[in-house]
């Protein structure tokens, strides 16, 4: 899976409250509407300007806070192809993979806002075309790659009928 797009750069500790604000709690059963507010409290312009294929690039502990799966769901709905961060909060990471949104742990210091990025998910390779550099990411556990390849956990269970490792 090769993904291409521009980088949207964020800092450390981007919480699920910044990604999917609680004041839009009533929109949780209407994900396309909720997606219009993706990351609104971190960058009010993001959801208006993000283009299909773009990447979210962040620092440490991306997605900390609540278990709301709506956070990765609306990131995916906004067209974002993957999230690259130095580290992820546990529940967010698992949720993202479950719904088929690739998440890669990598040193993101050498990626700036607007950089043109290419990502090879299987190889865990990030190419920053704007700076002509390659960044290696932590490989995803085998089971998680299998989930992503199958289009997420629901599709996986529909196919295999059971959960075995």
């Amino acid at each position, binding site marked *: 899976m090769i993904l291409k797009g521009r980088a949207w750069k964020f800092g450390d500790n981007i919480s699920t409250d910044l990604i999917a604000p*609680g004041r839009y709690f009533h929109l949780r059963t209407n994900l396309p509407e909720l997606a219009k507010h993706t990351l609104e409290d971190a960058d009010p312009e993001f959801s208006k300007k993000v283009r299909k294929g773009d990447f979210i690039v962040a620092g440490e*502990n991306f997605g900390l806070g609540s278990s*709301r*799966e709506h956070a990765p769901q609306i990131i995916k709905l906004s067209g974002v192809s993957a999230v690259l961060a130095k580290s*992820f909060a546990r*529940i967010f990471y698992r*949720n993202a993979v*479950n*719904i088929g949104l690739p998440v890669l742990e990598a040193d993101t210091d050498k990626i700036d806002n607007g950089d043109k990025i290419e990502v090879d998910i299987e190889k865990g390779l990030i190419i920053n075309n704007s700076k002509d550099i390659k960044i290696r990411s932590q490989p995803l556990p085998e089971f998680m790659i299998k989930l992503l390849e199958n289009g997420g956990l*629901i599709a996986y269970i529909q196919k295999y009928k059971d959960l075995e490792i």
Partner: protein
Amino acid sequence: MGKTISEKILSSHSKKDVYAGDIIVANIDLAIAQDGTGPLTVQKIRELNRAVKNPSKTIFFIDHASPSPRKELSDAHTILREFTIESGCKLYDIGCGISHQIIAEEYVNPGEIVIGADSHTCTAGALGAFATGMGSTDIAVGMVLGKTWFRVPETYKILVTGKLPVGTYPKDLILYIIGKLGANGATYKALEFSGETIERMEMAGRLTLTNMAVEAGAKTGLIATDKTTEEYLIRQGRGEKYVEIKPDKDANYKREIYIDASDLVPLVSVPHRVDNVKPASELSDIKLDQVYIGTCTNGRIEDFRIAAKILRGKKRNPETRLIIAPASKDVYEKALEEGLIKIFLNAGATILPPGCGPCVGVHGGILGNGEICLSTQNRNFKGRMGNPDAEIYLASPATAAYSALSGVISDPQEAML
């Protein structure tokens, strides 16, 4: 090789000897979701087009927006009501209280595995259960299959000795621990709280500690079972469910952290990070528009008794609104019987129905632009209480109650002497 509490419980539920780092499939005993995450869980169950494995141990709670403040949420509640009727799963509707408090009161037993579509599901670890939060898809699959996959976490042992000084409480202890570990200091880890301070602590305080394990990024917080666990279960009418759950003496810990509780002072988390912890005494210039006492962290009867002791016969500062919400109907009833609600009303408090109240910014006390709130909840992220232009400080019920009287953040130790 010896096992931690997590390794023991995950081994017994996967019928294998498992250790930190293993990726395993384990059977679950209880699965829960709430009104924020439940509708998506139901949608995923419908996509799977399969029946729920164990409906009597599959519970939905309407606690976040309870009662509903707007039509979209009323419709979301309808989804849960209809699904629980057709599937035979349980529903705790408006007026019952917060999921984490209710499952501690009525369901969770030592040695069990609990999964919940709410990050504070880790609260149940105080009863010696392995309990962790997940998203709606994971919970839907867990509800249907009766099992889920886990990566067995490494464990940090938090060993606490010494007596908590007057005016400090388990909330101050957990704020101190999170300040020390940092908001991602324990990502993917389990925290095992132990030591004489924990052994002396009643169940309410233990629930406050495990509730906030996730604020250090942890997968769960756990406490070995003992006399206190057994007495709690007996009081809740299920004493026969007591089993001893303890780590092995030679268990392998990733890190051991020693804390002398007698050094603690009342602490406050300063916006917008839970790990940004300062002594309450250094924050006396912070003027408060609102004080909130409640939530799954500190909305128990023990918390209300402390607050009532400080508020009895006094009035809140006229410029500081005081909102109080019991964590469950049971807490509410006890607070009524003990006359605590009367004390709160006389102090100028507004009492909300059992539930999450304004904690997550849906209703019941949303902050205005530029306003400042001191809350007993577990999170102070920007926007958490419904307004990104407001600020949230976190503290114990004692600090919250005492600060409601003065109108500024105040160290409650002086009130307790």
